[in-house]
């Protein structure tokens, strides 16, 4: 067991070379790779988290929009229903008015017809009366005088009635 100085020196030099070589070929690339991968994973996780938050935000937004749309639709439906109700009421009223108007018109018509009919009957009666009277008297009275007379009579009767 004798120590040879040159072997000691070589061992030291060799070791220094090995450390430098391994630093270049092994530790640096591997550590860089491990670090960069670590960083990448962290970044990915962060961005995933961000994406998740973003998605959540969008979801909330859409939910709010949906809710809005729903309530708007409900409003529209309510309004339409109200308008429909109004229209219905209007139409019914109109119809009622129309019906009342028609009824009134018909009644007027009837009254007018009745008056006309009565007048006609009166004239007819007067004619008949003149005819009968002329038959009874045996002579023909002046038709126009007679007519006047009967008319007056009928009028009196009518007024008396």
């Amino acid at each position, binding site marked *: 067991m004798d120590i*040879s100085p040159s072997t000691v020196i*070589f061992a030291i030099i060799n070791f*220094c070379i*090995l450390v430098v070589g391994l630093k270049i*070929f092994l530790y640096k690339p*591997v550590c860089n790779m491990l670090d960069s991968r670590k960083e990448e994973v962290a970044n990915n996780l962060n961005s995933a988290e961000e994406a998740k938050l973003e998605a959540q935000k969008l979801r909330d937004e859409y939910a709010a929009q949906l809710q809005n749309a729903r309530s708007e639709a409900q409003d529209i439906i309510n309004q339409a229903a109200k308008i429909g109700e109004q229209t219905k009421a209007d139409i019914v009223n109109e119809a009622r008015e129309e019906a009342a108007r028609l009824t009134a018109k018909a009644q007027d018509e009837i009254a007018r017809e009745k008056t006309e009919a009565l007048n006609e009957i009166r004239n007819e009666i007067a004619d008949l009366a003149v005819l009968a009277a002329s038959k009874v008297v045996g002579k023909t009275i002046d038709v126009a005088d007679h007519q006047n007379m009967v008319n007056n009579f009928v009028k009196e009767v009518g007024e008396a009635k």
Partner: protein
Amino acid sequence: MFLTNIAYASSGHEAAGPLFHIGPLEVTSEITTMWGVMILILVVSYLGTRNMKRIPSGVQNVVEMGIEMYENFWTDILGRKRARQLMPILASFFILILCSNYSGLLPLAGTLPGLKPPTSNVSTTAGLAIIVFVLCIYYNIKTKGIGGYLKHFLEPIPILLPINILEQFTRPLSLALRLYGSIYGEEMVVASLAALCPLVLPLTMQVLGILFGAIQAFVFTLLASIYLEEATAVHH
């Protein structure tokens, strides 16, 4: 020296001697094996991290898992910040020692010139322990200042000064000797068993060698990280 040579020769080991020289420095089999181990480690790391993908597969998975395991292990001891700072050194200790220990399991390791587990030689383990020693002093002075570091020798009571100083040296010494003794011993036993019966017998010890190699690498690294933890600890 003579006796060791005898032991080497009798167990079929090459006599430990320099293979060739670089300048004034001798290159031994341990050093060439260490280079081989280093090249292997670096090539594997290069292949494992050559084109890293976001979604890992194959070697990248293994490499990433290993590094993450190391990091978690040292985060428990040192805390996140210091673990990041010291992990290159500590993980290199572990990988280098583990592979060095296992290089002794290769066939003909110890007999083939240029192939001998680096950690079975006290000089290499001493080199590694010296690195830990120097790093401890460096980090102590860096975090506590020279005054703080020197004052630390008088704690908890000044009378412990000699023991504290002694401790500074026994630590690397024990690191070096523990690793060397364990691997060298295992190699020796394997060699002796191989000399007795080269077929199956050494296998039993080599299976244990897998366990010892991992344990020794772990112990060395763990102790080094505890020493460095102490050195970088900021007192409040």
